[in-house]
């Protein structure tokens, strides 16, 4: 029987032919965690009396949520994990100077067809290269780290087709918000989304990563871009080898399908306090903004910085603006391309490779009554700090334009 990408990956990983609704045990190709969840994963392993890993090469650890540590407890958590890394001789460990876990998985480890689990919900990001990637809690990840296995309920596959070419200020974020606005945050519960791109080069890896990243906001079990030329080129360029690809069979069955014409998209915003409270930028234009955040595992990539630099070049921001590339490598690239200089000259605070303000951690926590425009993934009540703050989610074009004007602004004014 023809199989979807979801069914193909999970059949291989479980060693039997699966169908939606089946509950199966699968082998994992990568199990990962970061600092904030990592100490909890290790604590579970210790309490279970099983401080061992199934395959050292398949464990990935990165420090991002508490990097660099904003307080003594954070430093202590990182020390505990470094000790674990040393004792178990884990080779794929990335300290505070490397970047955000999901970006590192994408840059160095994720391959098409992989099953990836990590103790963070935005693990879906690796779906950008066609991996079945899921976030799990600390206990489930501890079990996967020890045994190399986890269980999944095979989700119902849903097909999305992307057609046409996106306009100048349109980015992966607008596609993610379009899906959230049209379907709402509960629709894809129990489903996996498989996205086909009609013209692969029209929707590059940066954009795909943003959409996959927000698959969890859609409550999808996984969100995967069907591997194509863009996927192969990305991995070849970044890692120097050609990956094996896996694609759905012709005639594979989906519960439903939906098409987005990229050429018709306009800049979108998710208003407080829900990711699916989606509006066009014009509906909220003119609202005063205290702080703008450009970065996170959602929108901290080169194309995001390119867009921001285009808007901010030779100008000064009116709102506080914090910009954080998602990894050290991206920071260096953005520096070579002059984007960092442009942003710094425009008055932005720029640092590298930390989750920072996205989860109200540090480096720009929202105060009471403040309005934030953020390129991150969530605008839940109190997400970025005070319960009385408001977060508007947007792509980098809306974020940079809003920083420049000090109020929510349509970037198309800068064409």
């Amino acid at each position, binding site marked *: 029987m023809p199989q979807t990408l979801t069914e193909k990956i999970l059949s291989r990983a479980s060693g039997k032919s699966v169908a939606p609704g089946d509950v199966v045990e699968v082998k994992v190709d990568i199990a990962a965690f970061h600092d904030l969840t990592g100490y909890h994963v290790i604590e*579970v392993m210790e309490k279970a009396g*099983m401080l061992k890993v199934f395959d050292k090469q398949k464990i990935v650890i990165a420090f991002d949520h508490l990097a660099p540590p904003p307080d003594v407890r954070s430093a202590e958590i990182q020390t505990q994990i470094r000790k674990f890394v040393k004792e178990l001789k884990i080779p794929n460990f990335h300290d505070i100077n490397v970047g955000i876990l999901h970006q590192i998985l994408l840059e160095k480890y994720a391959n098409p067809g992989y099953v990836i689990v990590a103790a963070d919900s935005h693990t879906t990001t690796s779906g950008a290269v066609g991996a079945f990637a899921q*976030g799990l809690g600390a206990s489930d990840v501890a079990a996967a780290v020890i045994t190399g296995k986890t269980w999944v309920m095979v989700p119902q596959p849903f097909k999305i087709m992307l057609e046409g070419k996106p306009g100048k200020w349109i980015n992966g974020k607008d596609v993610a918000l379009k899906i959230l606005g049209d379907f709402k*945050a509960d629709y894809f*519960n129990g489903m996996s989304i498989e996205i086909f791109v009609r013209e692969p080069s029209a929707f590059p890896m940066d954009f795909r990563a943003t959409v996959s990243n927000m698959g969890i906001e859609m409550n999808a079990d996984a969100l995967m871009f069907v591997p194509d030329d863009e996927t192969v080129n990305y991995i070849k360029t970044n890692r120097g080898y050609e990956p094996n690809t896996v694609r759905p069979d012709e005639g594979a069955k989906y519960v439903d399908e939906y098409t987005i014409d990229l050429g018709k998209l306009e800049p979108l915003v998710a208003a407080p306090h829900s990711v699916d409270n989606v509006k066009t930028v014009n509906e909220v234009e003119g609202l005063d903004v205290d702080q703008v955040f450009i970065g996170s595992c959602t929108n901290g990539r080169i194309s995001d910085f390119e867009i921001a630099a285009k808007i901010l070049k030779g100008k000064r921001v009116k709102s506080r603006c914090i910009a954080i590339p998602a990894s050290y490598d991206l920071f260096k690239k953005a520096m070579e391309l002059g984007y960092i200089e442009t942003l710094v000259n425009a008055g932005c605070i720029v640092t590298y490779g930390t989750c920072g303000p996205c*989860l109200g951690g540090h480096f720009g926590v929202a105060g009471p009554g403040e309005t934030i425009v953020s390129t991150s993934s969530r605008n*839940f009540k109190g997400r970025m700090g005070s319960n009385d703050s408001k977060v508007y989610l947007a792509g980098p074009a809306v974020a940079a334009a809003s920083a420049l004007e000090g109020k929510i602004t349509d970037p198309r004014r800068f064409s």
Partner: protein
Amino acid sequence: MIVEGKVLKFGDKIDTDIIIPARYLKYTDPQYLAQHAMEPLDPEFYKKASAGVILVAGKVFGMGSSREQAAIALKASGVRAIIAESFARIFYRNAINNGLPAIVLPGVTQLINEGDYVKINVETGEIIVNNQKVYKGRGITGMPLKILESGGLLDYLKKVSIQNQGGN
């Protein structure tokens, strides 16, 4: 496995940042987390839940982060079970892994009210409200039930590991 208690009711899309804000995640102590459960929505939640309650909620309860502290905080604050229209996948697993029963019942927010007294058969999903009305939710069976009955994934893993060492 039977759990019972008085109902506290919530709406749709109760997210993990509401259940336990990120600033409390540097610790896993259940009592510490319990004091901050649901804080952004109701700072009095801890007091209300302490006598032992059943949560009734709308769609995708627990959406958002993978933070297992969300399930730990609710359980430690006195929540004995959650009945929701639907659950976010990660939270559902975290709840089971921490011995907190999670029952799916579409339409539950129309059927059960704040203050009702409910009795749940976790395995069959049968829910008795005020000793009168009976509804049928999705029960928990198979491995998730075994994990629940062991008190959580950790205790389940220990049990399995001991059995294996015993040569069974």
